[in-house]
């Protein structure tokens, strides 16, 4: 593999050390004390590969920064207290109403602080984008296999970040103590009460007594402003540190191997691209905050346990839990004078834990099934891991169906359907539709693999139709160029793990042979029907075949609208349609 086409720098002459300017003197002062140059020398020109899908995590990162900045501003005016006050601010429709200080201060921010409503809306929009971006980034990492060794820990950190982000969001939108979020807190209290044995104690400890009490908002404030941001910052720091240490993964292609990174240097290109993207994320959030009204708490009114609005939904990232709660049948068990509320406990506590565990454990499961202990820095195209891609498609289906179930009343109104029918449908759909999606997606990936192989062996379809003198129609195929051909073959072959049938000389099966047999069966199931890339022999065969075809088509190198070949025209020097 030759690298003589690679440039290490864009300059034409070597850089020279210059006499220190004033700025440089300051840097020297710092370096004398901190030794920064040693640290910086490796990082300044660090290479990052370039692809749009690598920027999805950045959306999350910059949204987090926006959250921090707007959040700090909001804390200057927000009062996290449930003390009762009489509202005397500018919003006429609530003047004189008794409400908590938290709600009153939110109204003040919205109506009496210039830029306050903009800050509130920016904060809320960027929270939504933060979690959405984390999810999309997670899906990209999953689909491309970027969670494989050595990045399993980063995957776990990422999953934890998503969980923390969701809790943080819930705490955040509950702070204004408005009707909609207060209803959400009521539901949270119900969820907590349904915990077996400890439920009522947990509920009383959380709320400082009976619901709603006057402790929950200040406590959520501490969680939202101090505890979880600290955890988020620490975990994001660890996430980034691992990324810098392992270097970013890259797509396979010409010049790219498992042992190098090809791309652009941090200074100046990635500082510019990442820094510029920060401003773009901030700017888009500001535009959304100014133009799109979100969480209009003044219309909901202050929280009152006897008031509610139709269409009570939590923010979108809680929609899954909401959907689960809505479609769950009303099952409760009464034994020995105690109640187990399956209808709340299962969807509210068990199901999210199960789903999260499945997601977090995937890298280890996959590694166990495939027996793959190699280090991977090259990404896989989703089609080349059909079972994994199909699994994600099925999970996304479950997610989407539960989302829809969480908004079943909105769906009923907008599409003129029966509310009950939607719920009944969803109860069955979340079990029936995902396996179907799984099967379809897997077949689709395999057929894409087949198409890739055909491209490699027979060339790409030119769209030029040839008609032979006997009257048969064929499509002209031309070979793909080397770069593209390499990209199509730059992947591993799947090896089925074969650990079954280990017996010793006396025919006694090995002690963990059952586990090994299960593993082998799973491994087979994972790779069954995957189409492997062609071997050298197959490729050479394909090329010979192509050469033969080219010979046959030699005399037919003409544009194929057909007229030229009716036997009455000269076919001398007819150019190929499309040109060279």
């Amino acid at each position, binding site marked *: 593999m030759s690298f003589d086409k690679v440039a290490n720098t864009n300059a034409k002459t070597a850089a020279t050390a210059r006499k220190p300017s004033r700025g440089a003197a300051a840097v020297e002062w710092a370096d004398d004390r901190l030794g920064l140059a040693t640290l910086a020398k490796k990082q300044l020109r660090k290479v990052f590969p370039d692809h749009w899908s690598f920027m999805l995590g950045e959306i999350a990162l910059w949204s987090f920064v926006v959250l921090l900045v707007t959040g700090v501003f909001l804390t200057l005016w927000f009062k996290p207290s449930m003390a009762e006050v009489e509202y005397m601010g500018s919003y006429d429709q609530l003047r004189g109403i008794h409400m908590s200080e938290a709600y009153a201060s939110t109204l003040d921010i919205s109506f009496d602080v210039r830029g306050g409503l903009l800050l509130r809306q920016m904060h809320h929009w960027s929270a939504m984008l933060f979690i959405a971006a984390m999810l999309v980034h997670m899906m990209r990492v999953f689909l491309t296999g970027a969670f494989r060794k050595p990045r399993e820990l980063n995957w776990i950190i990422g999953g934890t970040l998503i969980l923390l982000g969701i809790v943080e969001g819930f705490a955040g939108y509950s702070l204004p103590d408005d009707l909609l979020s207060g209803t959400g807190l009521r539901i949270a209290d119900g969820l907590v009460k349904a915990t077996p044995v400890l439920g009522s104690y947990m509920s009383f400890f959380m709320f400082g007594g009976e619901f709603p009490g006057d402790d929950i908002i200040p406590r959520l404030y501490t969680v939202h402003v101090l505890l979880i941001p600290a955890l988020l910052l620490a975990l994001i720091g660890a996430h980034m540190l691992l990324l810098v240490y392992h270097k970013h993964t890259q797509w396979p292609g010409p010049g790219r191997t498992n042992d190098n990174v090809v791309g652009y240097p941090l200074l100046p290109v990635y500082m510019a691209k990442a820094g510029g993207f920060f401003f773009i994320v901030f700017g*888009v959030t500001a535009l959304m905050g100014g133009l799109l009204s979100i969480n209009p708490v003044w219309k909901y009114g202050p929280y009152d346990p006897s008031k509610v609005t*139709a*269409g009570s*939904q939590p923010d979108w990232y809680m929609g899954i839990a909401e959907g689960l709660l809505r479609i769950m049948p009303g099952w409760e068990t009464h034994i020995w004078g105690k109640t187990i509320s399956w209808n709340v406990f299962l969807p509210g506590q068990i199901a999210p834990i199960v789903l999260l565990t499945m997601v977090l454990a995937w890298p280890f499961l996959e590694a166990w099934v495939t027996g793959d202990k190699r280090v991977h820095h090259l990404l896989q195209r989703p089609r080349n891991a059909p079972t994994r891609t199909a699994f994600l498609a099925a999970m996304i289906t479950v997610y989407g169906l539960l989302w829809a179930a969480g908004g079943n009343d909105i769906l009923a109104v907008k599409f003129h359907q029966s509310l009950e029918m939607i719920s009944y449908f969803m109860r069955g759909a979340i079990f029936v539709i995902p396996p179907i999606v799984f099967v379809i997606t897997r077949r689709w990936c395999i057929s894409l693999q087949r198409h890739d192989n055909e491209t490699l062996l027979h060339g790409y379809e030119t769209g030029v139709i040839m008609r032979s003198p006997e009257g048969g129609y064929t499509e002209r195929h031309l070979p793909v160029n080397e770069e593209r051909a390499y990209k199509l073959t730059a992947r591993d072959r799947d090896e089925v793990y074969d650990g079954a049938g280990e017996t010793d000389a006396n025919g006694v099966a090995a002690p963990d042979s059952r586990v090994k047999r299960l593993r082998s069966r799973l491994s087979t199931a994972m790779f069954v029907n995957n189409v492997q890339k062609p071997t050298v022999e197959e490729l050479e065969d394909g090329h010979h075949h192509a050469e033969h075809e080219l010979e046959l088509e030699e005399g037919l190198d003409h544009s194929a609208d057909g007229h030229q070949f009716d036997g009455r025209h000269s076919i001398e020097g007819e150019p190929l349609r499309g040109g060279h």
Partner: protein
Amino acid sequence: MLIGLLLTGGLYAAFAPASGAGEQQDDASQVAEGRKLFLVGCAFCHGQNGEGVLTADGKQQLGPTLAGVGAAAVDFQVGTGRMPAVQPGAQFPAKRVQYTQEEIDALAAYVASLAPGPAIPAESDYSTDGMTDQEKEEAIVRGGQIFLTNCSACHNFEGSGGAMPNGKMAASLRNASERHIYEAMLSGPGEMDVFSNGNLTPDEKRDVILYLQSIKEAPKYGGFSMGGIGPVSEGMFAWLGGMGVLVGFAVWIAAHTTRTSKEKVDA
């Protein structure tokens, strides 16, 4: 059932407080006019004398009896176009109004003549004439609290409407007129409960109407409201609008920029 309804109407007439300043038109010619219109447009489902029509097995109603529903119900149903209904169903949507207001008044007078029922409110019942600004503001505030206690559970926090069981829905209040809102509360159309004047007094009904008006006229403080149905549309915009735009930018940032096949000439 007819006896039961007549009893109810009688009880109502005996015990209910005066239902506002609306007068029942006793004009016999108006009633006759109304009967003529009724026979053409309403009797098919509601019976020749407004007694209601049952299906052949006697188990379901084609159209309920109109004895005791009152002029208010007629003015509401016909005035919002819900009646005449096009086909039987879970719920009758508001549609194009088929009758002129005169005709509606005549129909109302006829139905009111069948049995006593809630009357069409007079405009003074829900107007703010004679109220000081302070009183108006207090009325709006109180109306908001009453609305959020009694109405938003079905109609949503700003009257955008909501889902009810089995394909029915609580209508959007955005384009409803004040009189029709009053009448709906008074007459409890379809599956909507009744909010009689013993439940919500006429003043309280007026307060609710004032509140709805005030939030309709309020400026959009924070920008476009995206349908006024809360987090569902907000989430949709966050994904489609926000993430879509940002991912679009990401694609642009990492895309190959224009290339030329010319070679660089070192100056």
